[in-house]
């Protein structure tokens, strides 16, 4: 039976009978449908709608345009699964049939949020997560009708309303994750909030506190620096006194983040049984470790060397993804959300062997694309690490491409508690080798 689904969060999608129909509709028709659907409880006079969507100075032409667009809508979107007309029109009015069933993402979002007890929101973590998944972008993100002042104002109004709800939800989730000791999830949420508004000092303060909780003094100090830089560069102000005090407190403290106290034990490459990251300079040592690990077979070893291909963007990450896909069961790989695979597909077509239906959506700015690819591969690694311990061996690290290098730094910085194990070797004089070491929970540089 035919079903109407409208997704207004992010880029507009209108699905009728399981098929996208947006391209069959004019922008105005899509706008009218969105407006009627979002106001399903209201009946609109035709004249008002005509003036709303067209220039009211020529009401006859506006009426004609409305009539035509309603006709096209009704031609495509007919009766619902119960045989009810979805769009009801008569000579003077039109509306969405109140008896009809259709799906609208913002209704789902509102319904879930409505049932959340504000005072006891802790009980609703799953619901909040569900809404987070729904919010794939701003309300009608790319949808704008020229010369439709009132419609666009309605869009801005709804956009603000949904965005405020979403930000509130992110606040709640970050609080809940932190309270449940899921610090890395809390960090992800806060990073997302910083992406939305990088000028909110309290977000950096929250991040600092979480890193302190994790015992990562350096990361906490880095967040402070980051906060100072952004406030200075964008607003030419310094942080609040309370933030400064917090910083001074951290600076004075001697708490160092070090998961790896027993260096001697980890020095022995053949007895590796805990999380580690090693930077080696000697190929012989590297090969020795690799051979040793091959014999033990206790962990999944991904050998992903670098080649002199500096100009080929993402080649190392792409190879890594390919090797991970080859090394894990399809059922395990399928546990990763499709939207992450969509982003990873941008650098590795082997993703289609996991799920043929995955497609690349939209053209992104280089920066956004990079962020999403990084995030996708990060999520993939973190998911697989939960299934099996992974050791990534990187030979000739100095040849790594720029994007992959950035990714490794990003990954190591963000995921210091994830048991990813990394053994690299490369040219001792290479800047990248030394830079990466700053981000590693380094056991030994084996000079």
């Amino acid at each position: 039976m035919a079903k109407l689904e409208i997704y207004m969060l992010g880029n507009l999608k209108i699905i009728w009978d399981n098929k996208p129909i947006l391209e069959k509709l004019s922008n105005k028709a899509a706008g009218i449908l969105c407006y009627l659907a979002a106001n399903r409880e209201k009946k609109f006079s035709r004249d008002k709608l005509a003036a709303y969507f067209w220039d009211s100075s020529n009401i006859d032409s506006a009426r004609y345009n409305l009539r035509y667009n309603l006709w096209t809508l009704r031609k495509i979107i007919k009766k619902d699964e119960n045989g009810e007309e979805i769009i009801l029109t008569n000579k003077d009015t039109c509306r969405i049939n109140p008896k009809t069933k259709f799906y609208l993402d913002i209704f789902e979002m509102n319904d879930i949020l409505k049932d959340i007890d504000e005072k006891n929101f802790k009980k609703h973590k799953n619901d909040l997560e569900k809404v987070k998944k729904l919010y794939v972008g701003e309300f009608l993100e790319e949808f704008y009708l020229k010369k439709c002042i009132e419609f666009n104002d309605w869009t801005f109004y709804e956009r603000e309303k949904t965005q405020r709800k979403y930000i509130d939800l992110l606040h709640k989730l970050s609080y809940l994750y932190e309270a449940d000791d899921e610090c890395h999830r809390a960090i992800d949420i806060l990073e997302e909030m910083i992406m939305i508004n990088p000028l909110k000092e309290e977000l950096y303060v929250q991040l600092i506190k979480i890193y302190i909780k994790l015992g990562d003094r350096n990361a906490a100090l880095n967040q402070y620096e980051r906060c100072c830089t952004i406030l200075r560069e964008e607003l030419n102000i310094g942080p609040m006194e309370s933030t400064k005090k917090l910083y001074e407190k951290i600076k004075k403290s001697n708490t160092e983040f070090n998961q790896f106290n027993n260096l001697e034990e980890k020095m022995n490459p053949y007895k590796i049984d805990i999380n580690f990251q090693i930077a080696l300079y000697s190929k012989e040592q590297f090969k020795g470790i690799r051979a040793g690990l091959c014999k033990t077979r206790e962990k999944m070893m991904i050998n992903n060397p670098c080649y002199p291909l500096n100009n080929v963007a993402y080649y190392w990450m792409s190879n890594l993804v390919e090797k991970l896909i080859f090394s894990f069961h399809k059922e395990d790989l399928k546990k990763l959300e499709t939207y992450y695979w969509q982003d990873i597909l941008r650098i590795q077509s082997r993703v289609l062997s996991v799920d043929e239906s995955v497609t690349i959506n939209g053209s992104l700015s280089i920066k956004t694309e990079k962020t999403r690819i990084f995030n996708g591969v990060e999520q993939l690694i973190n998911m697989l690490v939960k299934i099996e311990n992974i050791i990534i061996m990187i030979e000739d690290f100095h040849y790594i491409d720029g994007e992959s290098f950035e990714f490794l730094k990003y990954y190591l910085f963000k995921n210091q508690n994830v048991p990813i194990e990394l053994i690299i070797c490369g040219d001792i004089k290479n800047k990248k080798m030394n830079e990466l070491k700053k981000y590693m929970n380094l056991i030994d540089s084996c000079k």
Partner: protein
Amino acid sequence: MGQVDLLLYNGIIISLEEEKPICNWVMVKMGKVFDLGIGDGYKSYLNQSIDAINLKGKTLVPGFYDSHVHLVQTGLNSLSLDLSHVNSIKEILNCIEEETQKISKGEFIRAIGLDELKIKEKRLPNRYELDLCAPNHPVWINRVEYHTSIVNSLALHKLRIPYDTDGIIRNENHTPSGVLTGRASALVRKQILNKLSNRMRLKGVNHVLENAIEKGVTSLNAMEGGFTFHDKDAEFVYENKDSFPIDVSLFYQTINVKKVLEKGLRRIGGALFLDGSFGSRTAALSEPYFDDASTNGKLYFSQDEINDFILKTYKNDLQVSAHAIGERAIEQILRAHEYAQSIYPGKEHRNRIEHCELPSIDQIRKAKKLGLMLSMQPAYEYFWGSSGQMYEKRLGETRRKKANPFKTILEEGLIIAGGSDSDVTPMNPILGIHAAVNHPVLEHGVSPIDALKMFTINGAYAVFEDHFKGSIKEGKYADFVVLNEDPLKIQKEKIKEIQVLATIKEGNILYENNLRD
């Protein structure tokens, strides 16, 4: 003797060197001064010269330095719609409507310089008004001080605004009116500047450099990135500086020492705003403003913050510069250097104070003691320093007379590098020299030779280039400007009328106008 690339003879060559201060001819080979002298010594080179120019008494001076330029912003502003002259909302809308004919649909129309106090309605236009004149273009208008933005609906739609941020001005139906201030404006500005392509930056910068060359500029200091600007500007200059026709030294306007070090840059700061400006009554004065006793300006850093930052630059051997206009801001930067030098004594960084418009005599002496130099803009005095102009309005007569005391500064032994602060004032060193000599306050005016040094050898010194640029000497780069008059001899009131006839960069004639007449 091999081939001579360029020979310039029969001129008045002001070398700014103690030995041979005035010569008649100069010979250039491989981009450098190979020989120069007085009399007939050039004749032996005539036959070997690819290009030999008889200057016929014209004056040749070292290529000019402009030591403080916002290069990318000047370039982008030159491509933007200038609304500084409009008188009404209607005029604004007409200008924007005209602009829609020049810019492709969907592309941002950027406008600058709007000051609602200068238009009859005394208000800014709203989103709906802008929609009517540019329905197919996103519009972004910058208020004159860059801290307020006005956008139309399409721009508002395209920009990602966090609605819980401060500074979104709302209309009666509680939707954004299109006017964004403070944080909201900063976020929008960042997004729009982020969207601008480097091709656009290049187009603007090329336009500016072409103009700079016509004014005799062969080297400049670009103050890029940071507050009110965009780091992409700094990155653009960093990536492209080697391909510009003249030398561009980058001052990355950030407090992020690590970022600058990672790029291998040796200097940091520039217009790092310790205070604001007289015009907006935000320069940090010790006494209140003359025309608004409720304020004596703003300090944007705490002493601890600036101390920390300056200390980091000393620790990492960076040259640092910061914008300080009023006495309180000047005091703050002096203290920060004092603090840093108490920990790292004896380093010669040629650290600079930009603008330093209202220093006290004690501050001048303290700056000298700390080994600092000043980067100043004499043209400010030309535009705002005379009786009845902006300085007097804001500061009153007594303080107006204390502003930019060039002569005292030089007498105290400090070095001044001259700049324009383009596009605050036009990039035009001749005007700068004129303004330094013809200071509205007689006792602050300097001699023409000292003014010339501000825009040549002092500029070179200010970026550690004095050993190969800034004066005319064997072995130094052949960067010259040919002038139709001798700035040392012309009646001082007429210096600004001097014409640049040629600009020569490393022996290459980049600009020529009536040179060979």
